[in-house]
């Protein structure tokens, strides 16, 4: 059984006990524990269930590579599924629960899958559940979904906050082991601005556990000293609990800092995502030990040899009293030696190499440990925990030579450098036959904006496993990175490491070498996803020969650990089965993040009220206080209508229309785009931009204009006012303000760059209020001494006036068909004018109105609305706007496009009014049917509704639409089916429903 030892535990503060619960059980740990070490200290070997077969799962690793031990952590607004216990620091009061089982971890009904595992090989679901057809959706899929998935879905809103940092460094070093520390020191000494990040709370990485010396001192001492030195360097920033999550193009990278995961009640954000631009990145990310593929290697109690060592040395926890070591390299001997020195039993070391180990083996032998060379595990005994091993020859087929009782197995299949961050942005890999590993191909690195390398590997991440060479390699990487970032490197201090030499590794991909199918079906590659050696071999037999095929077919490496333990082993089995070398098979692509990062950290602080910036007009506060029902329009929120107490939205809209038509309405039109176009060539420029002529507009006058894109489609409209000979003010739609300004600049800067024109988007500089209705002039007259009579300020004219003491510009334009002035004032005066108009208009029953009343009134007048009558495929000619298309101009944007055959096709649908026979309102977007169907069996159509409203003015439905030969078919009746199939009949009429001669607006 696993237990806390009386001594040891370099990371523990035994004086500070902590309490926590697992599946409701109250357990104790100490400060410095990870949740993994604390669970093991309480003999909690079984911690979860696998994905497919619901096999019992125990902790297998000690770091971010852990595939098995995932728990649901916390409760309610702090609940988080799939939290790895190996990277969760223990804190007082932590609560967690195991996952993927029912009804309990100990007794899981889903484990029946394991009994059936022979019938559920890789890809079985592609071959089954095909008939009968409805069963997939209704029976099979729900069962599979219920059985799959890991943790529970959170239910509550996240209680925590998150933030982003933006940072710029010459050199970012990822990984705070001895390699990272030395690389940072070398780069820092050269004068580079350095960030060093370490994903755990501790500096030093594995080296302090693995032994050896640096400059004659224990590694721990060296780590303390170098950290102190780095802390004194002003140009070096150190961060623990921060993982290099991803490397992206041009030196962009993400650092994922877990600020409060270990102290959830502390103030401040929980995670901080660092968004870093680095000139150079050093990946000192270490290496991960590989499991060995023998039958029963997934039983709780089978653990990576390095992890067994970590738990003893770092946390004073033993995994078992009797630990069998199985290895193909020298490193695992360190575990045997550590255990033995702790007074624990190591019954035997099974070294698959016929020639055995080197100096470390000698040391182990000297301690009295039995070593068997050329031996392997035939099978592990036990169910929910290890009970013993059956020993066989590695070279054979698994005939059992001997059985040995044990309660833990420490395995080592060699080491794989962590090349993820090297590879994220295109760094290539080399297969190193001698070391049996993929390591970075430094001649094919990720390249940046200048085409030069921007990532360098260091230490074990570069395939160097031997302490002295790790330090040399890291020192060189740090210097090279600084140099590449423009900091000439000085030869600094190179610490000298010392450790035992190791005998070469012998690759062992299957144990024993000739294992039969029954053993291969029990030899796990991917623990979480239940992929076994036999599965990869089956994939290869069935023709899934590319590594991508095999991975996708078997799901190897697709679990939450993304194959950190399984990819290389699986790849080797695949290569072996195909009879080709590993590099020929290739690797899968590494994708960010290195280990999963919270979605909330990606979103950062932008949530709820700060989700997106909100644009407010100067009158926004008044709207909010006066019953505005808002609609989002771009980043603005515009009042759709102003609801009075007890009033429905529909009623409010109808009231606003009526009040405006009868007397006086006010519209906050500030969101409309306002762009100044100025310069000697301004007229010429606007002639190119608008379909109609603008250059001959007289100062003091306004003209409605249409803008098309180069494809000929109508993109925006608005009123242009000529302010003086040189200057125009172009009004755009609300949504078009920024894009039209950008459109203008694009043409000015990239096509007509010699034209003398300046543009300025002054949308937010002015508040604009439409004063609309028969009493509009009366209310203005109350507030101004200027002459705003029909003679002094005629329809489609503008004039500077002083209104309520405010300098204002009044445009006599109308989008409602009523007498109307749009008054622009400096934004800071907008609210004052609004208030003044409300006060002065009181006697006329002044009524602020929203966008829907605006829409209804323009529809009653037959005015088109960009986005309703247009949809990006409509040209002005479709809308009967030929009068606004200059015949005199040689060119304007869109003119050539409108000459194309489809644009001049006489059968294009044209704008008409539509009037239902029964007075009802046509549904928005309804189509008019024609006889028959097209070649694809779709009902033929001959028109559609583009706008439809109930008109309070006329007391019935009105609509506009585009209809085949529409203008020539006045009086024809069309069928408009509703979605429920019933048909509304509507007559084609003139689109102007109200005041056809325009008498009301021109008084």
């Amino acid at each position, binding site marked *: 059984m696993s237990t806390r030892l009386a001594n040891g535990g370099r990371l523990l503060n035994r004086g500070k006990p902590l309490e926590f619960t697992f599946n409701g059980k109250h357990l104790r740990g100490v400060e410095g524990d990870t949740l993994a070490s604390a669970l093991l200290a309480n003999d909690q070997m079984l911690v979860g269930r696998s994905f497919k077969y619901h096999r019992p799962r125990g902790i297998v690793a000690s770091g971010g590579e852990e595939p098995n031990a995932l728990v649901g952590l916390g409760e309610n607004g702090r*609940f988080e*599924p*799939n939290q790895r216990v190996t990277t969760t620091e223990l804190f007082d009061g932590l609560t967690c629960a195991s996952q993927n089982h029912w009804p309990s971890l100990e007794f899981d009904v889903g484990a029946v899958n394991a009994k059936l595992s*022979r*019938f559920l090989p890789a890809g*079985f*679901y*592609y071959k089954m*559940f095909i008939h009968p*057809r409805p069963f*997939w*959706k209704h029976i099979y899929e729900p069962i599979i979904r*219920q059985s*799959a998935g*890991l943790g*529970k879905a*959170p239910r*509550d*809103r996240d209680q925590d906050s998150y933030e982003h940092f933006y940072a710029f460094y010459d050199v970012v070093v990822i990984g705070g082991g001895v390699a990272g520390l030395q690389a940072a020191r070398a780069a820092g000494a050269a004068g580079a601005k350095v960030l060093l990040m370490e994903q755990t709370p501790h500096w030093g990485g594995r080296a302090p556990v693995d032994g050896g010396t640096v400059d004659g001192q224990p590694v721990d001492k060296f780590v303390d000293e170098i950290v102190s030195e780095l802390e004194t360097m002003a140009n070096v920033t150190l961060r623990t609990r921060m993982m290099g999550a*991803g490397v*992206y*193009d041009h030196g962009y990278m*993400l650092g994922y800092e877990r600020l409060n995961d270990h102290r959830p009640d502390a103030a401040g954000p929980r995670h901080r995502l660092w*968004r870093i631009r680095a000139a150079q990145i050093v990946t000192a990310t270490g290496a991960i030990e590989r499991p060995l593929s023998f039958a029963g290697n997934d039983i709780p109690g089978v653990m990576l040899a390095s992890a067994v060592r970590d738990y003893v040395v770092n946390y004073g926890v033993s995994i078992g009293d009797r630990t069998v070591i199985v290895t193909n390299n020298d490193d695992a001997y360190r575990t045997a030696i550590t255990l033995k020195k702790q007074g624990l039993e190591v019954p035997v070391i099974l070294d698959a190499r016929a020639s055995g180990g080197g100096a470390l083996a000698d040391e182990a032998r000297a301690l009295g440990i039995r070593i068997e060379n050329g031996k392997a595990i035939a099978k592990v005994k036990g169910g929910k925990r290890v009970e013993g091993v059956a020993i066989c020859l590695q070279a054979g087929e698994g005939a059992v030579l001997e059985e040995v009782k044990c309660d833990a197995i420490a395995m080592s299949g060699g080491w794989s450098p962590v090349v993820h961050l090297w590879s994220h942005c295109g760094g290539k890999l080399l297969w190193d036959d001698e070391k049996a590993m993929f390591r970075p191909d430094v001649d094919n690195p990720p390249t940046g904006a200048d085409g030069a390398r921007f990532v360098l590997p260091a230490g074990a991440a570069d395939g160097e496993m031997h302490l002295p060479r790790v330090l040399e390699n890291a020192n060189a990487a740090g210097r090279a990175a600084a140099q590449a970032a423009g900091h000439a490197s000085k030869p600094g201090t190179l610490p000298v490491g010392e450790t035992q030499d190791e005998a070469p590794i012998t690759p062992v991909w299957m144990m024993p070498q000739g294992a039969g*199918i029954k053993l291969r079906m029990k030899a796990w590659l991917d623990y979480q996803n239940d992929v076994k050696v*036999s599965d990869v071999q089956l994939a290869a*037999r069935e*023709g899934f020969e*590319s590594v991508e095929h095999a991975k996708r077919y078997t799901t190897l490496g697709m679990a*939450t650990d993304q194959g950190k333990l399984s990819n290389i082993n699986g790849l080797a089995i695949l290569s072996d089965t195909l009879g080709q070398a590993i590099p020929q098979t290739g690797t899968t*692509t590494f*994708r*960010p*993040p290195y280990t999963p*990062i*919270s*979605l*909330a950290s990606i*979103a*950062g602080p932008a949530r*709820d*009220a700060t989700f997106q910036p*909100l644009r407010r007009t100067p009158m926004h506060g008044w709207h909010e206080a006066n019953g505005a029902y808002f*609609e*989002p329009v771009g980043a603005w929120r515009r009042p759709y209508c102003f609801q009075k107490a007890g009033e429905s939205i529909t009623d409010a809209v109808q009231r606003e229309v009526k009040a405006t038509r009868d007397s006086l309405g006010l519209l906050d039109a500030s969101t409309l785009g306002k762009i100044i176009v100025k310069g000697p060539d301004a007229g010429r420029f606007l002639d190119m931009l608008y379909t109609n002529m603008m250059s001959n507009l007289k100062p003091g006058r306004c003209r409605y204009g249409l803008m098309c894109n180069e*494809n000929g489609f109508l993109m925006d409209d608005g009123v242009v006012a000529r302010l003086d000979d040189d200057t125009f003010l172009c009004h755009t739609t609300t949504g078009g303000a920024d894009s039209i300004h950008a459109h203008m600049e694009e043409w000015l800067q990239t096509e007509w760059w010699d034209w003398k024109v300046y543009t300025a988007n002054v949308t937010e500089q002015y508040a604009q209020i439409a004063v609309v209705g028969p009493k509009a002039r009366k209310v203005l007259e109350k507030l101004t001494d200027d002459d705003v009579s029909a003679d002094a300020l005629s329809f489609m004219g503008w004039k500077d006036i002083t209104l309520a003491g405010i300098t204002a510009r009044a445009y006599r334009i109308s989008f409602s068909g009523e007498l109307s002035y749009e008054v622009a004032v400096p934004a800071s005066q907008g609210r004052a004018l609004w208030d003044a108009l409300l006060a002065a208009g009181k006697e006329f029953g002044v009524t602020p109105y929203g966008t829907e009343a605006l829409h209804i009134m323009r529809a009653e007048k037959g005015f088109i609305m960009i*986005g309703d009558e247009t949809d990006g*495929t409509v040209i002005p000619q479709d809308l009967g706007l030929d009068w606004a298309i200059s015949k005199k101009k040689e060119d304007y944007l869109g003119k050539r*496009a409108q000459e194309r055959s*489809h644009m001049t096709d006489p059968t294009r649908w044209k704008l008409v009014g539509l009037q239902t026979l029964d007075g009802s309102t046509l*549904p928005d*977007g309804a*189509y008019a049917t024609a006889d028959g169907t*097209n070649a*694809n*069996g779709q*009902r033929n*159509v001959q028109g559609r509704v583009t706008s439809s409203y109930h008109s309070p003015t006329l007391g019935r439905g009105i609509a506009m639409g585009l209809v085949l030969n529409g203008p020539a078919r006045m009086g024809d009746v069309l069928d408009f*089916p509703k*979605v429920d199939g019933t048909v509304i009949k509507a007559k084609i009429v003139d689109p102007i429903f109200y005041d056809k001669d325009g008498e009301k607006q021109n008084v």
Partner: protein
Amino acid sequence: MKRYSAFAVAREALRYHMGWERAWASPEPKKKYDVIIVGAGGHGLATAYYLGRNFGITNVAVLEKGWLGGGNTGRNTTIIRSNYLQDPSAAIYEKSRSLYETLSQDLNYNVMYSPRGVMMLAQTQHEIRGYERTAHANALQGVSTEFISPSRVKELVPIINIDGPRYPVLGALWQPRAGTARHDAVAWGYARACSAMGMHIIQKCEVTGISREGGKVTGVTTNRGDIACDKLGIVVAGHSGHLADMAGFRLPVESVALQALVSEPIKPCMDVVVMANTVHGYMSQSDKGEMVIGGGADGYNNFTQRGSFHHIEETVRALIETFPMISRLKMLRQWGGIVDMTGDRSPILSRTPVEGVFINCGWGTGGFKAIPGSGWGFAELMAKGHAPLCDEFSLNRFREGRFIDESVAAGVAH
């Protein structure tokens, strides 16, 4: 081809699964085929399959530079829907969707088509009108959709936040028979069925040249020798321009990176696919339990299969706003695909200036859902010279100004 079934799995289990045959053969190329398809992605394989099934043309080779299904077929968010606005789009996507319904049975391969329903949220008045229009159009196109209320949205997707604050859900366009499928299985299923008809799927075979005589195609040059053919179909997504160059014509296509991501797997919490176009994000839950999230596309040409992180940020932020409970889930993996954008964002299925050469490209972000329909139509186009499903998607439409623009109804093409 041995049939797949539960019985076959049980039978093979007794033999420890040693008796399964290859899913598709791996033959050496012949000197000549009637038809060569370049590109063994979903669209290319489906084209080959329907050439055989519908027209009896089986002397077909599908040439693939890498591994079949290794492009966008295997790197998308697997959404299948046909609630398109314009007639030609609705026709081909609905044909596709209806073929997906029975694809597992047709191919004897479980592609796991899951008609769980797709909803597109309306969060502005403009979107409401756009989706109402689409619902009307769909009714006449034979596509079953409806515009549903916010309370119905909440009923179908309990984890959604319909109250805003910034963009309350005002309704949704709902297509109950839309859904998802297992992307790899679609490619593998078609490949197996093609192979069973005697067609040659030749992987690791890169086309380096296209031979012509008198304006007509005669064959291709590859790294595995010259191969002659009467007709050539180019179905290579991100590499279309490159192949068109070889054949001597240009395409109105630009390639950009589109991104997606998945969370760690959790137990079932969302049964339908939700697309929120105002805030730019869409999400579904895979059978495995991962939340599958689609993000934005870069606006610049890019062949790296890596995109810009700020799109991921924008998408995740939007989805947390829409589904607050995903906040504490973790991103497991993000990736990019290269998508081809045409002048109107709709695909090209067309004859070309070279006789005998046909092009199928420009699917943008909508390729996966179209695979069976595209294969069906393109096979007919290649066999007969025209096809109702394809005719509107010709290369000529840009010259004529006859756009098929789906962005018009707010229904951005995902």
